[in-house]
């Protein structure tokens, strides 16, 4: 049996205000029902007004996913009753979403893959219901702070995929939405959530019943839930059982999918066009100007990094994981004093480690990309040694100084001039007669130790290669 998998991803849009009212979207940590108004609490007579920025974000996302943008699009009412749906309907897009027929290209296990995108549409988030107990009584509490937060729903084509690939799709989608700066990528806080659909079939055969696993909020959960579900369905079938179309949840601790409480009746959402919002018309020229304003997306950027800068595919991949890193790298490259490969190593190596340790993001560290370029340039020009470079970078990270300033302050400039090194070599030979003897007896490895002595004497500033050359000449 082969699995046919589709994802529905809900992503919150990084707008300042809600989808249809002026309430702030920054409700995280706020007391319940302090970020809502007549509109998002569904008071009688209140009307929605579309947040233009949410629409922009939707269009940009749809374009980044290679969707066709609808020249006329509209909102619909999705009717269902639940306490956290304050109007008794959710404003969504049903018949005419803003984007259709897209594609997301990404690499899975080093191989290029392409997933079809069925549609992308905008909708409002619901409030949040909590079932709890107050003074010994079971109660349900509703918080409308989240009600009306702009959401984008992205639906993929159902296709045969491996669970691991679904995980990478989710990661690639998150990466793109973060590149577009339309989503903060914070899975733990629910900024992106995935519902996965899965059915089994004999290759070329009829699709089995569809099982939906809702509300997965980690890459791992997507993969593990699918793996578990494929396994479970195969087991049920092997035992002569039947798969039912149903909605299941993911039990994170138990590492299994569990049936969700069956709904009392099948939902019929009775969609119809939202009369409170006029249809959206998006002109070709608007679409083109949105297209022109899109940033370079991660896959294209990593390919360019390999071609333009001679990086390895792995270096390019790591550098483009986050837009901030790639931007930082290119700012450093632009200074043109260090090699791109050297910069890639420093940025993904020591700088990434220091950044990670500081708990900050690349945008907020005190080290400017231009200064990193100068530092790497100094190492590459042998003005300082690599180990001195690491020392300098750490100092830059605390003080924000320019690399030259640190080098001068710590007196780390490499000894490169021949007469100084001559004197140094002569002293080393004089102070280490045993090593000289060992060398002359044919054990040429002893020169390593002599270079080490020279480095120590110079407090690491001597150019080890040049010292070695001078020693070799003198020992002949």
């Amino acid at each position, binding site marked *: 049996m082969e699995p046919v998998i589709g994802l529905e991803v809900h992503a919150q849009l990084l707008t300042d205000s809600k989808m249809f009212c002026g309430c702030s979207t920054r409700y995280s940590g706020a007391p319940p029902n302090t970020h809502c108004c*007549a509109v998002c*609490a*569904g*008071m*009688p*007579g*209140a*009307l*929605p*007004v*579309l947040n233009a920025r949410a629409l922009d974000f939707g269009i940009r996302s749809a374009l980044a996913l290679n969707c066709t943008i609808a020249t006329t699009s509209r909102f619909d*009412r999705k*009717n269902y*009753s*639940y*306490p956290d749906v*304050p*109007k*008794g*309907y959710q404003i969504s897009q049903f018949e005419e979403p803003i984007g259709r027929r897209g594609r997301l290209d990404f690499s899975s296990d080093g191989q290029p893959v392409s997933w079809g995108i069925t549609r992308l549409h905008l909708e409002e988030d619901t409030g949040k219901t909590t079932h709890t107990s107050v003074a010994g009584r079971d109660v*349900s509490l*509703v918080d409308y702070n989240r009600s009306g937060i702009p959401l984008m729903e992205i639906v993929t084509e159902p296709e045969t995929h491996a669970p691991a690939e679904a995980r990478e799709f989710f990661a690639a989608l998150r990466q793109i939405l973060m590149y577009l700066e339309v989503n903060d990528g914070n899975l733990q806080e629910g900024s992106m959530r995935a519902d996965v659909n899965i059915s089994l079939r004999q290759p070329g055969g009829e699709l089995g019943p569809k099982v939906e696993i809702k509300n997965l909020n980690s890459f791992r959960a997507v993969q593990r839930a699918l793996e578990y579900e494929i396994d479970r369905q195969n087991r049920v079938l092997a035992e002569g059982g039947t798969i039912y179309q149903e909605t299941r949840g993911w039990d994170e601790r138990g590492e299994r999918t569990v049936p969700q409480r069956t709904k*009392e009746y099948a939902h*019929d959402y*009775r*969609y*119809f066009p939202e*009369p*409170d*919002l*006029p249809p959206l018309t998006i002109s070709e020229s608007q679409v083109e100007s949105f297209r022109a304003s899109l940033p370079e997306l991660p896959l294209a950027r990593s390919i360019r990094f390999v071609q333009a800068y001679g990086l390895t595919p792995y270096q390019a991949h790591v550098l483009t994981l986050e837009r901030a890193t790639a931007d930082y790298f290119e700012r450093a490259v632009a200074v043109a004093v260090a090699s791109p490969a050297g910069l890639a190593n420093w940025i993904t190596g020591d700088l990434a480690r220091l950044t990670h340790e500081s708990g900050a993001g690349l945008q907020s560290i005190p080290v400017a990309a231009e200064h990193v370029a100068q530092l790497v340039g100094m190492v590459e020009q042998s003005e300082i040694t690599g180990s001195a470079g690491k020392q300098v970078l750490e100092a830059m990270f605390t003080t924000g100084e320019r690399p030259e300033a640190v080098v001068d302050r710590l007196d780390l400039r490499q000894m490169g001039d021949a007469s100084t090194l001559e004197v140094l070599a002569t002293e080393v030979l004089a102070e280490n007669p045993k090593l000289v003897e060992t060398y002359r007896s044919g054990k040429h490895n002893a020169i390593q130790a002599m270079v080490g002595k020279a480095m120590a004497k110079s407090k690491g500033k001597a150019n080890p290669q040049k010292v070695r050359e001078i020693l070799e000449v003198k020992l002949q």
Partner: protein
Amino acid sequence: MELMNVSVSELAALLAAREVSAVEAAEASLRAIDQGNPAIRAFLRSTPDVALSQAREADLVLARGEGGPLTGVPIAVKDIISTAFVPTTCGSRSLENYVPPYDATVAARLKAAGATMVGKTNMDEFAMGSSNENSAFGPVHNPWDLSRVPGGSSGGSAAAVAARQVPVALGTDTGGSIRQPAAFTGTVGLKPTYGRVSRYGLVAFASSLDQIGPITRTARDAALVLQVIAGHDPLDSTSVPAPVPNYTASLDGEIHGLRLGVPSEYFQEGMDPAVERIIREGVAQLRALGATVEEMSLPHTHYALSTYYIVSPAEAMANLARYDGVRYGLSVPGTDIWHMYRNTREAGFGTEVKRRILLGTYALSAGYYDAYYRKAQQVRTLVRRDFETAFERYDALVAPTTPTTAFPIGARSGDPLQMYLSDVYTVPANMAGVCSVSIPAGFSEGLPVGMQIIGKPLDEAGILRIADAFQRSTSFHIEAPAVSLGAA
């Protein structure tokens, strides 16, 4: 009570001249409400505290000579328009104790213009009805004959104006709910073009059809009130951004050369012959004033009413879903959330509201959408095209507002179809989104007859010009029902 027998423009002149104060005007209105309400029941509540405090403020403005045409003018507001901190019940048990935390845009604009709100008027529950018998708080009685209905759903607003309790009241019109009661009570009822007046704060019945408008005794008064409430509102995405013309500037009595069409579909079987005769006389009067009049056709008129009863219940089904007992209004506990919903809605909604929710649910259900809702929207387009085509030839259309005069209370309440037919001539203007005004055109057996003037989108000035010219040459609008004189 004489003070309440004057028009808005006459009262405004008295107020501006300081011959009466805003407080006196408010007190006169509140007195008329107190005296008339036991028999007429036009008001669900009077708001003396609000009225008197607004009136005192209006007097200060007037004393500085800074008043506008509505400063100090008492006004009644249909109880489906949100008024901050004043209960807004929509004539429903479900909102009996609901107090809005905010003003509808129209309420805010009237406040800013200095009008004094004297009360909230009775209505069919959630504006669903044509007789006011669907109010959860009891029917309104027609001031011209207390045994008859005032029409609906803005029956309270129309009766209040007819009974000289206020010179102006706001109503709402989804399928005729301003014009039909205006016709039944001998008042002027204006349904503006869809989008001309903000719906923000109007509790929605059918969002693509609802429109707020004034009920007054003269076309000039309607123009004065429209001037204040019309205009784009950023809080209502369906409100039209077009500039608001000066509506009174066109009221010069001059309609010479205007081309008027009289749709033959509006004179069909089931119509009261006396109503037809009076409307034909009204048309003749307009011709006498210099307009050219032609019989013409709006071929899809016949389908407007049935499609209206698909579209409006569908929207109402969704609009009324929020009355679930969770956040505000009536809440009846249950063993679980589903029983709470059921108990709340069972107790909160009346029969007609439930009927329409069921109709709307059915029309949108899986498998029926294409046959009902989508088809109705297609027919709606045809109805709209009828008007577009007509307005290429005619400046306005003239027709009866209703097929009959006011019927007795109880006569149709058991027969929804008969009740729905009362709106057969008003619904098409809503389906097309065009503007229309009903004006008093005569009396049949002591009951008023209304004539409807339908105009192009945003041509309120045009239809008010015709209505005003008609009123300058007739006196139907000056006649008052005996009940209002008796109250005096």
